[in-house]
């Protein structure tokens, strides 16, 4: 009954995309997965090929109101960010304990960093999604300075929308890699198929099964699986990992 937090330094990094596909990968690995969105403006359903007008049911709504996509339970709890009892509530629901069978992925917008700091120390892992861009790099010192040791210990990084054909992107990715070392669990190549799938109201796996970004994000999801049983440091126990960064994709 593990909780994995998806968060990021800056809006637009692809946190929701990563959360959705992490959930799909964990579900395909056999877990019963719930994705919880705490965003006021929610785009989570789009990554599952659902209609933009869809409103996700509350975390506490009855089972008959559930929205299931690919077997994944999609829920919303906007008030969680202001709810001082949210962590005890998760405990009551049976979460916050390591285990591979039942997982909650919480999609936390970058702006809700205070909420993230509150929940991450109780989670099994935090996937920090960031772009290899100078404005994102500039935020790293402040974010690290504000983070507790417990938060940093649970944090794994993933670079999203990496355009390796661009020099600055490559240099920025190299800087991140040098900074965070083994905590960088993978990178997701920039892929036009991601927005195209949303526009087609289809899951990425259906619209573009050979998508480079899909392969990358699946590898990251697989690398996060050990965190379900060994809370805190998914990079310690992982085995087969993301594709080498030396490959360049369109």
């Amino acid at each position, binding site marked *: 009954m593990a909780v994995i937090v998806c968060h990021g330094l800056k809006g637009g990094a692809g946190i929701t995309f990563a959360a959705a596909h992490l959930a799909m990968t964990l579900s395909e690995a056999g877990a019963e997965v719930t994705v919880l969105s705490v965003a006021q403006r929610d785009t989570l359903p789009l990554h599952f090929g659902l209609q933009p007008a869809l409103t996700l049911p509350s975390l506490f709504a009855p089972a008959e109101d559930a929205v299931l996509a690919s077997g994944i339970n999609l829920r919303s709890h906007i008030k969680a960010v202001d709810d001082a009892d949210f962590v005890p509530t998760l405990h009551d629901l049976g979460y916050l304990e390591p285990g591979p069978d039942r997982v909650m992925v919480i999609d936390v917008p970058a702006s809700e960093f205070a909420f993230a700091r509150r929940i991450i120390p109780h989670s099994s892992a935090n996937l920090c999604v960031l772009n290899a861009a100078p404005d994102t790099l500039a935020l790293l010192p402040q974010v*690290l300075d504000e983070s507790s040791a417990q938060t940093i210990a649970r944090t794994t990084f993933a670079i999203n929308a990496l355009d390796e054909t661009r020099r*600055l992107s490559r*240099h920025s990715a190299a800087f991140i890699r040098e900074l965070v*070392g*083994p905590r960088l669990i993978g*990178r997701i190549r920039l892929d036009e198929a991601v927005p195209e799938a949303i526009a087609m109201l289809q899951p990425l796996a259906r619209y573009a099964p*050979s998508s480079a970004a899909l392969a990358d994000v699946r590898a990251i999801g697989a690398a996060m699986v050990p965190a379900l049983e060994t809370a805190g440091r998914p990079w*310690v126990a992982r085995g087969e990992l993301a594709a080498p960064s030396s490959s360049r994709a369109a």
Partner: protein
Amino acid sequence: MRIDARHLLDRLGKNDFAYKEFEDRFTELELWPILEALLRDPRLQAIDAVETAAPEPVVSEAVGTHAPEPLNALFSRYGREPAAPSDAAAERRGVQTQDVRAMLRHLSDLGSRGEI
């Protein structure tokens, strides 16, 4: 993906394109003052302080092929002594004069080996 690109990939038996890698020259890597500014920020040492407090077992590398090493060790290669494990907080505030040029040279080396 455009249909003509899809047909080309099908003919090549590939799922995506692979661009030719070009070496990043050291002089080009020096063009980014933001990297130098960040390397001089002691707050980046926070990530290393956690590693010092809770050493990790040796792990396989996910993205790059170079061996992971603590940030303060990285800096120490460029002209400073390694930080004392028990003095991580003081080290965070004290690291002001890293050899940024050597750090960038290291990045250039990674690029020349195709690891960037």
